[in-house]
């Protein structure tokens, strides 16, 4: 065997372990395979290493655990189960609670909103019906001292009307209106060319139809609402928000 060949073999034997472990890159693996087919010494070396590998593989599988030990370990893992179940259920319950609360809030918000929307749209209907009527008011008067007494005996409450002399608002008249089968007052004001209805109902008559003080607009009408002394006031009209605020202030001041 020439010196050169031995050197070639030495470089290969260094890689023999990786080759037999299947860890050699594909190119080198092919080349080494080729070499093994041609070199008896390397083939013999390779065989003896394979045998050692196999021998260690079988000899290494020597100890078998006791079945009771396996059962003990499994029980040991299972013993952690209650804690794990606690960890498992707590977040689930917490999540369910969060979802329930979120759901309840959503329903509540929706029902309140539905109530408010229903109220606003009913008032808007009343306002439009009044404007559309050929006989919009039952008492035609610009004088608050005429209008207020006119309601006596027609509605189960009384209210004050503001002095409008220095304001852009003009009282055009009033009529009895109904909401939730309960009578209330509807006052018609005008500001420039706009008509504004002011509804006054007893709070307890509104039932589930609630409104808060927030300014809202629905169906292109502006709406203002507040309560005072058990009465709920609604100001609705197509006039500007500023106009509605001004009229609301005057009414609040008079009450």
């Amino acid at each position: 065997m020439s010196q050169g060949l031995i050197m070639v073999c030495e470089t290969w034997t260094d890689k023999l372990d990786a080759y037999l472990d299947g860890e050699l890159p594909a190119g080198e693996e092919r080349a080494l395979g080729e070499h093994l087919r041609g070199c008896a010494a390397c083939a013999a070396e390779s065989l003896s290493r394979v045998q050692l590998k196999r021998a260690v593989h079988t000899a290494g599988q020597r100890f078998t655990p006791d079945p009771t030990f396996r059962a003990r370990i499994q029980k040991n893992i299972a013993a952690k189960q209650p804690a794990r179940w606690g960890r498992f259920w707590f977040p689930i319950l917490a999540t369910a609670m969060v979802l329930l609360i979120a759901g309840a809030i959503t329903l509540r918000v929706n029902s309140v909103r539905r109530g408010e929307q229903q109220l606003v749209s009913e008032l808007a209907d009343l306002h439009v019906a009044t404007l559309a009527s050929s006989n919009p008011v039952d008492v035609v008067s610009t004088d608050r001292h005429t209008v207020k007494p006119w309601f006596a005996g027609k509605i189960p409450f009384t209210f004050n009307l503001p002095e409008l002399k220095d304001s852009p608002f003009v009282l055009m008249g009033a009529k009895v209106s109904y909401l939730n089968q309960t009578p209330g007052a509807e006052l018609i004001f005008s500001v420039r060319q706009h008509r504004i209805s002011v509804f006054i109902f007893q709070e307890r008559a509104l039932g589930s139809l609630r409104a808060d003080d927030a300014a809202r607009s629905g169906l292109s009408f502006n709406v203002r609402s507040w309560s005072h002394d058990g009465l709920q006031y609604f100001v609705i009209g197509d006039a500007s928000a500023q106009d509605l605020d001004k009229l609301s202030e005057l009414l609040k001041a008079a009450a």
Partner: protein
Amino acid sequence: MRGQLFAGRGNKTTAGWFTLVCVSEESLLSGSFEQLAMPHFERLYNFACWLTHDRQEAEDLVQETYVKALKGFSSFQQGTNFRAWIYKILRNAFLTSRTGLKVTATVPLDLEGNEENLPKVQETPESILLQRSDRELVQQALEQLPVAYREVLLLCEVEEMSYQEISATLSIPMGTVMSRLSRARRALRAGVQTTQVQKMQGA
């Protein structure tokens, strides 16, 4: 006001779903520990016996391994090698055990560069042609090996781990895996030869 309520509702619902997703992932994790870990039980026990040379100690070691693995399971990164992870736990538990400390105190765990402690091998293929009956011979030789050689051989030949897995299990670079394996094999051959000669002389 309505806007705020809506925003609030949105946040809560999102938080709710987020929690739900986290929960299902965690329950998935805890549920799969047993499925992932128990198939390795027999092999882990075998490996522990080879490390400790004592069945009782091996049982303690395996038990400790399972307890630690379960406790630390949340830190196990899904998709990475579970086998390497649990073997690493067992090995670390062994190294910090009394036997492990004693072993590593007498024989350094890192045997790289210690060429002189490798016995010379008569490289004649015939001398280590092993028969089935030589199982005991190999076992004796394995027992005599320093623990660093024994474990790397067991991981490679018995567990049939890739170099990559061995590298992860022993926390050593791939190059070290290869060189240590090569030394371990030479040491084992030498050991087998010595035992063989002793046997023949005794016979």
